[in-house]
């Protein structure tokens, strides 16, 4: 059993709140350690500290790896490598877009004025003539926006 095989198996574990993106592409798997063919230790970290989906994802990760026939699977949830949206893969960003969410753009530092939330590209028409309506949306990781070009409301995945 190799790390790559574990990661491949985890590609089939999805975020229950955004079922088009896997936990691997979301960037929440921070370490995979194959101790031997029967002992694997996985470390993951939540997107938001209060993310209610983390326990579900932890169980799903555990059962996906056990499904490979590995008897001892340990899944630790830690903040040792804190998650940021910069950890989302390109494939993950495409999956967010497919789900109708504006993917977060890469950032160096996030200022208190959150300028990065204005003029987010509309996932429906691609225009940047958009405005932030609210930094809070239907889940902790989403924000609400409005597109002045196509006159549609849309959700974005918050840069964090």
């Amino acid at each position: 059993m190799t790390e790559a095989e574990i990661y491949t198996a985890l590609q089939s574990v999805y975020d229950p709140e955004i079922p088009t993106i896997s936990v691997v592409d979301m960037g929440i798997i921070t370490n995979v350690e194959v101790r031997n063919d029967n002992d694997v230790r996985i470390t993951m970290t939540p997107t938001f500290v209060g993310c209610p989906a983390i326990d579900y994802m932890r169980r799903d990760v555990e059962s996906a790896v056990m499904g490979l026939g590995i008897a001892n699977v340990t899944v630790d949830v830690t903040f040792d490598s804190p998650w940021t949206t910069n950890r989302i893969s390109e494939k993950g960003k495409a999956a967010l877009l497919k789900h109708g969410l504006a993917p977060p753009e890469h950032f160096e530092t996030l200022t208190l004025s959150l300028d990065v939330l204005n003029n987010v590209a509309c996932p429906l028409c691609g225009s940047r003539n958009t405005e932030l309506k609210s930094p809070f949306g239907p889940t902790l990781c989403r924000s609400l926006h409005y597109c002045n070009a196509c006159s549609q409301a849309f959700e974005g995945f918050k840069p964090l």
Partner: protein
Amino acid sequence: MNTEAIKDLCYRMADDELILAHRHSEWTGLGPLLEEDIAFSSIAQDKLGHAQALYTIMHEHCGEPDADTIAFTRAEDAMRCSHFVELPNGEYDFSLVRHFLFDAAEYIRWTALIQSTVEPLAKLAQKIRGELKYHLYHAQTWMVQLGAKGNEESHLRMQSALHEAWPFAVGLFEPGKHEDSLIADGIFIGEHEAQERWLALVAELLQPSTLVTPHGVEPVYGGRNGYHTVYLKPLLDEMTEVYRVDPSAEW
């Protein structure tokens, strides 16, 4: 490392977050706008997560019981929350002002904790600070909107709420028994320094709102030593009701 000092710091921060999370959640379904309803509910969820993470650190590193036991079984006088978070929501103006002043204080605390010598706290701080930017952004937007861009009534109501909240907000920085060792051991900057940084941040963020903060007000202390307002006990009774009926219940 001084475990008692770390516990004292974590309890006061976590209890503040737990109780204010509960207050914020009381807006769920009742917010003046759908977006605001969602905002307060989301912030409540974040705060609850922060409290849980702090309780978990105390469980794993300081020998305290697990997070649920800590959160739901302590008597009123064992709680270390400030009077500020206990106060009822009142009108939306007061809730917004409390949200603003509290999150500015949180932002100062968690930013300072990134440098903490307590490793799990420092790592958690790095994470939580990012989330707090959204809380503070939301709060400041409304302070400016209702303070400078609203009308005479909105300005008056926000200014009045600010006066009402102020002595309690300054009371967030009630010094504890372990101030000296928290500072000496590099665990935290201490309440006095935190208050100074908070005053500067509040002044900066309020500047475009045209709202002014009061001067020479006596802070309201007591919560950090287990003396609480009459509002805490009913809140705890409601918050812990399910747990007391069935501690193994999942909801």
